[in-house]
């Protein structure tokens, strides 16, 4: 029941806030924030009660929904899900605080954000495709309106692009799942992830039609790849991230992009092991491209937010590198199982940590924009003198992002590369280029914005206020804590990873 409560709490609160009168904006905002904190508490409770020792699903709730259609209300979490729930629950209050000062209809903004949160929880807990898809799409609508209504000057096209791209992917994925459903024998038809995986392992259902299974695989792949996004399906992302209001961008990058990676692990990995194997080469190329090309593209950007957006693509590329690298039959060298486990653990750790750091980075970029009225890379300089705390904290976030050991960005990337260097050496080597480029352009930001001559007009640049410091303090704490004690994450993730490796 706790998962159901978690899923529907933000939804209910969102509806409540939306129904409040127009003159009760502040009250609505408070309610929304309180609800997000409550959700965080529930998520923490799930994490606390979660049995770290086992890899299977816990807190399972399973009720028939539409039996004729194989639709079930099937909830459950494993380590991966728990971390994603926790991440989402952490980011939403952070994002709400970042959006506290929104002027245009804040009540609606907050309620949409809560809908979005509900969608996230639903996706990260659902174990039946239709149930999962319901929330997958549910998260899209509020995100769309958040961009469309509160976004920057080019929000119209950004929102439409975001929506259409994602929907095309979703439809492809839906069609693929329907095909799987239709291909199975009447008695075996199901939308349940675990049972689909069993069908795949037993070479039943879709797995017995190799040619069609490839088509289906790419249908699902497309849906997930757009969401992550993976090069070359990423073109919607910089615009959407750049135009979205800060709070929304934080959720988009921290949690929604994880929906895609989560899908790779939860859906693609167990249900299409054959196909991943078969197409591993091209997929690795895509992963490498996702790491290197956006990093290079970030150089060309003059807009801080777009730079961070590109860096976000790049960081998710590592996750995919880890996944595709690990997707290699264990029959080879004896040590591979360990490397695979390392890579997948790295992926999960990276997902969580990138969520935190990217959200923090966007928060800081938002603050810069709010103070400076713009976010051009070359518009600033020397800000460390008037705003040392600002500079220091954002610097920490930047360093965490580029993977400085001791900060949270490091363990994930380290584990991924540790695994990948063994499992897919060439790709991993090429991908290190991405590491290098990321480091360079993140440092460029640091240098251009915070050092150098201080333009006269910025001499009165206000440092972080107390409130802002309080907002970032928990995140900063986590950045250090998770950098120093990555086992906080791997401890939860590892059983789930072991479970996943059974498919290979």
């Amino acid at each position, binding site marked *: 029941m706790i998962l159901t409560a978690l899923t529907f709490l933000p939804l209910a609160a969102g509806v409540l806030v939306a129904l409040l009168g127009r003159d009760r904006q502040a009250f609505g905002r408070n309610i929304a924030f309180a609800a997000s904190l409550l959700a965080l508490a529930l998520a923490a409770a799930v994490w606390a009660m979660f049995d770290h020792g086992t890899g299977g699903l816990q807190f399972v709730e399973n009720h028939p929904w539409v039996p004729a259609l194989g639709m079930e209300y099937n909830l459950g979490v494993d380590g991966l899900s728990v971390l994603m729930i926790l991440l989402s629950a952490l980011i939403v209050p952070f994002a709400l605080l970042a959006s506290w000062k929104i002027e245009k209809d804040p009540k609606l903004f907050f309620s949409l954000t809560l809908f979005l949160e509900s969608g996230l929880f639903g996706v990260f807990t659902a174990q039946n495709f239709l149930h999962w898809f319901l929330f997958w799409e549910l998260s899209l609508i509020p995100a769309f309106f958040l961009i469309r209504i509160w976004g920057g000057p080019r929000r*119209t096209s950004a929102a439409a692009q975001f929506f259409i791209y994602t929907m095309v992917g979703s*439809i492809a994925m839906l069609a693929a799942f329907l095909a799987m459903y239709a291909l199975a024998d009447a008695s075996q038809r199901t939308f349940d992830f675990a049972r689909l995986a069993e069908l795949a392992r037993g070479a039943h259902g879709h797995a017995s039609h190799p040619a069609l299974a490839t088509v289906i695989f790419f249908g699902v792949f497309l849906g997930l790849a757009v969401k992550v996004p993976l090069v070359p399906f990423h073109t919607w992302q910089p615009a959407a991230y750049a135009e979205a209001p800060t709070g929304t961008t934080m959720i988009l990058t921290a949690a929604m992009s994880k929906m895609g990676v989560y899908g790779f692990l939860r859906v693609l990995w167990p249900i299409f092991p054959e196909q991943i194997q078969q197409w591993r080469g091209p997929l690795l190329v895509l992963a490498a491209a996702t790491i290197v090309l956006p990093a290079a593209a970030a150089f060309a950007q003059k807009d801080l937010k777009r730079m961070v957006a590109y860096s976000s693509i790049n960081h998710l590329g590592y996750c995919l590198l880890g996944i595709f690298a690990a997707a290699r039959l264990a029959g080879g060298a004896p040590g591979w199982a360990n490397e695979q486990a390392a890579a997948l653990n790295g992926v999960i750790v990276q997902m969580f940590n990138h969520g935190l750091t990217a959200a923090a980075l966007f928060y800081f970029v938002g603050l810069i924009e709010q103070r400076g009225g713009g976010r051009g890379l070359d518009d600033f300089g020397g800000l460390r003198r008037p705003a040392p705390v600002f500079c220091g904290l954002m610097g920490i976030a930047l360093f965490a992002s580029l993977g400085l050991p001791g900060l949270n960005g490091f363990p994930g990337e380290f584990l991924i590369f540790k695994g990948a260097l063994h499992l897919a050496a060439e790709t991993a080597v090429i991908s290190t280029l991405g590491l290098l480029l990321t480091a360079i352009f993140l440092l460029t930001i640091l240098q251009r914005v915070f050092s150098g001559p201080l333009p006269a007009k910025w001499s009165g640049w206000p440092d972080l206020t107390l409130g802002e410091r309080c907002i970032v303090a928990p995140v900063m704490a986590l950045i250090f804590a998770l950098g120093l004690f990555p086992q906080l994450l791997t401890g939860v993730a590892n059983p789930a990873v072991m479970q996943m490796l059974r498919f290979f």
Partner: protein
Amino acid sequence: MLAWTIYISFIAAAVLMLMPGDNPRPARWTALLAALAGLACAVLGMIECKQQAGFGALADVANAPWIAELGIRYHLAADGISLVLVLLTGLAAVAGVLFSWNIETRTREFFALYLALIGGVYGVFLSVDLFLLFVFYEIAIIPKYFLIAIWGSTRREYGAMKLALYSFVGSAMVLVGLIAAYVVAGAKTFDLAELAKFPFPAAFQNWAFIVVFVGFAILAGLWPFHTWAPTGHVAAPTAASMLLAGVVMKLGAYGALRVAMTLFPIGLHTWQNTIAVLAVVGIVYGALVALVQQDFKFVIGYSSVSHMGFVLLGLMTLTQIGLTGAVLQMFSHGIIAGLLFAVVGRMVYDRTHTRDLAKLQPMNLNHVLPFAAVTFVVGCAASMGLPGFSGFVAELQVLAGAWQTLPAAAVLAAVGIIAGIAYTLRVLLKAFYAEDGVVAAPHPHCPPISLPERAGALLLLSATLVIGLWPQLLMQFITPSLNSPLMQPLWKAGAP
């Protein structure tokens, strides 16, 4: 109980015809009460049928000799499929009255014709004697003409005439097929269940099927016979567009399923692929044309063609799941299209007096008419087939069915869905959200959304949401009906 849906509608229509005076108020209330009573009868009838054990088969509602000379009987009966559509009719009827609350000219006549149309529609869904079915089918045509020709807007006389002639040509084709079937069977009966038992020769089925099917499918908006739909929808007054898209198009699909497919399974098998192709073309074509329309209502009009394509595709899958999806899609599209037309015609057009998207966009109507905007957003989400709404469950099953028998069609239909998302999004943004940086143009004073409008919108919204989240509610009626003896020939012929 169910038969009263028909009688109440016709009696109320007659009462309205004879009512003295031109005061709109009693006319409105009479119509609303009649529509509500019809809905209540439909719901009670459904419950009644559910309590009877074998409600999958046709359960008699009324059965009496009528024209002995030709063996024609007044035979009404319902199975799950008809019940679902009767329920849809009841919902659409109530919502239509609510959205016509502002009709001031010749109110009495408007509602009289409206209820006559509703009565005819109920009749079609409940008839099993094919002669009777045909009678009701034609009864429904004429009120449509007048509703559009008298109370319509853009090019109303053209739209009305086109609609009437298309419908009539379609029904003429049906008539030829029915008479031929009657004669060939030689059993001196028009009873569907009796005729379905007769093994019609294959050669006969091959032509009779396509004649009857297309005759019905014209009304369902089968491409390329769909052209009446957009013009008719645009010309019609709000309630009439709602009914046209909501239930009248379903008459066609229902007839195609109940009559053409049930009577001529061999013919069905012969033409299955051809019609599936037409259905898919309709899906994609309707969506693409909707993408470039400048008239708000044309977008919804073409979207109806596209969505009805799913119904026809679902029928052509000849799988249980596909047919379930088709019937569910009939229901779903009836509700959603009704909702969208209500927003376009009643909430927006009646207030702004324009449907030109280029003129609507600068008005930034989401500020002016927030309720309309929210309704339309949810309606669009439902129309796109987002999960949680009825359209999703329906189209999902159609696609799943198509994967089993016509995989290529499934892929193309998925493309159609994507185009559908694109035009829905486009029209949503253009109609309600101003372009970036455009200062909202001064707009005519818009009266706020009235109570009847809110009630109607909520009725339809909750219907699509409830069915979206709990499709079992309707599927428990549909599924057993598909397994009834009447439908058995379909599966046999359809088995590869």
